[in-house]
């Protein structure tokens, strides 16, 4: 029953019809009206943009090009009228349509803009299998290969009369043919003896003087040869057409030859060459200068030297960047702490400036920074370190200053009351409060930096990222797969250690003992840590090729580059290109989030401990599911792009799929934790009413997990937009591709526009997603 309202429903409806949202404003529903107004405006823009730029939803009506998406758009407008009218009568229009209609429009456009082509996933599955089998057999260990080759000569074609029999076995192992001459298509049989029993090999036809060669095939398949247990083999084959390419003149026969080649793996498995590149090897190198000068070794002697591989370079990049960013972030975080700056004259202005700089710097991805830094200090690991440092200084400084703002003022008061001066107050009341959370954040950042270090090489050179681009370019998928495994293992270890140490730091030691703990320099463990850390520092410094002088000796064009970056290009064609790629990026992220979340929903139940710990089988499934999530999560989206570029081709679709894989892994973990955290109370209560199992799930489980799930999905979309801004660097299209193109063409004005656009979109999404999530929880 509607209560009489002071507002006129007809007027509300009319206003809503005139301007969407105005009806709600009239009713005093400010937020709702504003959201409807902005949604309508955005949808209108996106629909016309999609029609103009991509001919999406094109419908030629009486010679006029229109988009059929205007139909759902109109429906949304009408829904707004209905909603305003009903709300004036204290009722509400069905909410579902308010979500469904915009969602329909957005997904139709997103689907086409992202160039989704499910057919390609199926038709080119053969290509995917190549990579999948490489992942199962990564190139890390190999056995020695022994090859045996035996060849025999043959005339092509036969002369009249036939040539005399030829000397057999011109090279390697004894092999002979049953004919001294033959022409194309004729069947010849090859015999051999003295080969490794059981070996399988191929036959090759070598043209005149061995200038060309081809594998011998029959019926579309390579002719395979297998050696008998007694070391002999015998195989008939047709003379290939290849043999006739140089002419088939009986007056002038040419001497060709046939080779049987066997490659046999012998001995035990040992680390492969790729293992050496990735992880490390012992190599004979000239001795270090110090040892030569001490007269311990001669200068021209070689000594076994361990050479660390690309993964250690990556670890070093992450470690050094974390260290540098802590050192820089600690002092500047004080500038971003409101409680401190409010006491200093002019402090408020400094506070707002500091916070703005932190946020802007943070919203530009490490890889984008990488491209800029390379212009400054040149390609190499050091550029990667600087790029990571810039981003993490901003991220850490923000977290640190928030931590300073949240300290307990009580101890400050207490230490002041004992007569302590300002220094003592900071040392005894502020310091103990902020050190543990600072350390915890630094460890979290270490984890994030290690992940970023695996991809920063895509743009900066150095580390695993660089290794990956190089191997993928050469088509070395087994080597690429090995890199994925190594990255996954290292990152999973870092993830585990970082989480464990964080927990230790925040919970602290609470053991009861009347003995004071020994100072670190009095314990063996303390010394072991100190020495270990010092060595790690020195080794990392060298591996990451830290060269601070380079920072003060920027490339000759750097000054101009910076000024170009700041004076951005806002001419309409550039803006149109930037907006187009930006929208593709946002849609890519949206589809990836949707796809990843849909797959994650059923999977997350398998990865929820509370559901899966009943039987041994189910806990085994739980462990496998968790491992899959952890494994996939430890590899950055950028590293996955190569797989999908190979599978479905370069473009937004490949980028979207790569993003969807990381989304699945991240969101699967969050979803399953949401299931693990449900409150058992309602479950008990609903069961106690006599409800069935399905009813219990419907009424006690689903309502508890839906809000956190939606909240996580929106959060993930926010994260995905950040990742999508760089997915183009590896062939995944979107704004990153545009940026690297502009930067590559030295058009830094335009590159600056791209960066500004990224900052705006990321900041906006950050704000919107935070607001929506606040409402949900």
């Amino acid at each position, binding site marked *: 029953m509607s209560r009489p309202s002071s507002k006129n429903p007809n007027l509300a409806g009319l206003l809503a019809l005139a301007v969407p949202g105005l009806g709600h404003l009239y009713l005093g529903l400010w937020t709702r009206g504003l959201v409807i107004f902005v949604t309508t405006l955005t949808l209108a823009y996106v629909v016309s943009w999609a029609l103009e730029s991509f001919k999406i939803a094109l419908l030629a009506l009486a010679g006029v090009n229109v988009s059929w998406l205007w139909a759902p758009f109109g429906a949304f407008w009408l829904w707004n009228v209905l909603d305003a009218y009903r709300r004036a009568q204290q009722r509400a229009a069905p909410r579902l349509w308010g979500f469904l209609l915009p969602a329909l429009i957005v997904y139709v456009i997103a689907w086409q803009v992202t160039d989704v082509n499910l057919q390609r996933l199926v038709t080119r599955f053969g290509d995917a299998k190549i990579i999948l089998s490489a992942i199962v057999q990564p190139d890390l260990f190999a056995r020695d290969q022994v090859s045996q080759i035996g060849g025999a000569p043959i005339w092509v074609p036969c002369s009249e009369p036939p040539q005399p029999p030829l000397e057999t076995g011109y090279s390697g192992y004894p092999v002979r043919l049953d004919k001294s001459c033959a022409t194309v298509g004729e069947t010849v049989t090859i015999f051999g003896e003295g080969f490794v029993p059981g070996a399988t090999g191929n036959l090759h036809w070598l043209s005149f003087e061995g200038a060309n060669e081809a594998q011998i095939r029959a019926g579309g398949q390579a002719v395979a040869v297998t050696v008998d247990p007694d070391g002999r083999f015998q195989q008939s084959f047709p003379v290939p057409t290849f043999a006739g390419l140089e002419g088939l003149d009986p007056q002038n026969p040419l001497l060709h030859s046939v080779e049987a080649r066997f490659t046999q793996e012998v001995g035990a498995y040992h680390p492969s060459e790729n293992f050496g590149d990735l992880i490390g090897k012992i190599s004979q190198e000239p001795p270090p200068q110090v040892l030569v000068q001490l007269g311990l070794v001669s200068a021209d002697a070689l000594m076994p030297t361990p050479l660390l591989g690309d993964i250690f370079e990556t670890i070093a990049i992450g470690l050094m960047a974390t260290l540098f960013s802590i050192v820089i972030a600690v002092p500047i975080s004080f500038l971003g702490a409101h409680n401190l700056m409010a006491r200093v004259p002019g402090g408020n202005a400094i506070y707002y400036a500091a916070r703005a700089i932190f946020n802007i710097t943070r919203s530009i991805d490490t890889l984008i920074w990488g491209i800029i830094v390379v212009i400054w200090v040149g390609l190499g690991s050091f550029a990667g370190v600087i790029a990571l440092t810039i981003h993490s200084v901003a991220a850490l400084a923000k977290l640190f200053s928030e931590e300073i703002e949240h300290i*307990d003022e*009580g*101890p400050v*008061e*207490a*230490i*002041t*009351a*004992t*007569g*302590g*001066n300002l*220094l*003592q107050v900071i*040392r*005894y*009341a502020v310091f*103990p*409060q902020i*050190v*543990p959370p600072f350390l915890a954040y630094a460890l979290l950042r270490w984890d994030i930096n290690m992940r970023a270090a695996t991809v920063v090489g895509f743009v900066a050179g150095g580390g695993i990222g660089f290794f990956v681009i190089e191997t993928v370019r050469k088509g070395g998928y087994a080597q690429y797969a090995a890199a994925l495994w190594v990255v996954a293992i290292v990152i999973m270890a870092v993830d585990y250690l970082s989480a464990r140490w964080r927990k230790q730091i925040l919970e*602290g*030691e*609470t*053991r*009861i*003992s*009347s*003995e*004071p*703990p020994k100072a670190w320099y009095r314990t063996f463990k303390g010394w072991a840590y100190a020495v270990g850390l010092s060595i790690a520092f020195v080794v990392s410094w060298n591996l990451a090729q830290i060269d601070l002088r380079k920072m003060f000796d920027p490339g000759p064009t750097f000054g101009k580059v910076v000024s170009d970056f700041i004076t951005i290009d806002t001419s309409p064609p550039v803006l149109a290109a930037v907006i187009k790629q930006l929208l593709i990026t946002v849609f890519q992220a949206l589809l990836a989030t949707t796809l990843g979340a849909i797959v994650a929903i059923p999977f997350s139940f398998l990865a929820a401990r509370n559901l899966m710990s009943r039987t041994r089988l189910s806990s085994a499934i739980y462990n496998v599911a968790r491992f899959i999530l952890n494994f996939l999560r430890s590899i950055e989206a950028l590293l996955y792009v190569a797989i999908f570029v190979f599978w479905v081709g370069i473009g937004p679709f490949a980028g979207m799929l790569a993003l969807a894989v990381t989304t699945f892994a991240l969101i699967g973990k969050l979803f399953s934790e949401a299931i693990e955290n449900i409150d058992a109370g309602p479950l008990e209560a609903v069961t106690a009413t006599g409800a069935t199992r399905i009813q219990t799930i419907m009424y006690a489980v689903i309502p508890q997990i839906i809000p956190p799930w939606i909240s996580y999905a929106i959060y993930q979309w926010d994260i995905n937009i950040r990742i999508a801004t760089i997915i183009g660097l590896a062939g995944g299209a979107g704004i990153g591709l545009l940026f690297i193109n502009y930067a590559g063409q030295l058009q830094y004005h335009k590159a600056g526009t791209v960066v500004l656009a990224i900052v705006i979109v990321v900041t906006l999404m950050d704000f919107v997603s935070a607001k929506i999530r606040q409402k949900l929880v």
Partner: protein
Amino acid sequence: MLRIEHLTKVYPNGTVALKDVSFQVQDGEFLAVIGLSGSGKSTLLRCINRLIEPTSGKIFWNDVDITAASSADMRNIRRQIGFIFQQFNLVKRSTVLTNVLSGRLGYTNPWASLVNYFSRVDHQRAVKNLERLGLEDKAHVRADSLSGGQQQRVGIARALMQEPKLILADEPVASLDPVLSHSILKYLEQLNKGDKMTVLCSLHFLDLVHRYATRAIALKAGELVFEGLPVEIDDARFKEIYGKEAERVSIV
């Protein structure tokens, strides 16, 4: 002797927390400060060691004007005045020992204390004070692993490190349950009677005032409305201080 003259405190937002308050405290007294929440008790105690700057008025401690002291002098004055807080104000993540030692900061060289250096004598003093409060076995645990009553005892031990002549206690038992309240107040009584320290203690419950205080003052909306012996607070006075609806409740 502590002498307060015409003390007034107006906060920047216009709240008048203290209005022309004057009284004296003789050495060796246990003075209870009573009044409703927001009546100005905390502001009064914090003005005495200038954790809060008074707006006007003077405070004399043994004829030295605290309100006129320079910041170096203030450091010397503060270390003679122990302060005990309602919320204990311990550094939760530091050990009990560090918290207690920090009470000595007013005496130590600021640079030496930056690297956590305290003299052997200070360490012995800390252990002695912890023993006195029955916490000798807790020296090396983190402060937040202790119960509320234990934390307040650490707070007292920290104040004792200052070897104070005056103790200001701001609702020291308001965060504790009744049984613990007595144990904490008995320590204060001991310091007052045994160690001859002057104690100013704000309290909520009247029967605690009757039991422990030698004299009482009452604040109402920032004004001094009563000064006298605890026994003089009868029902009429009580209603005058706490308002008409108040009921006397007692604590075990």
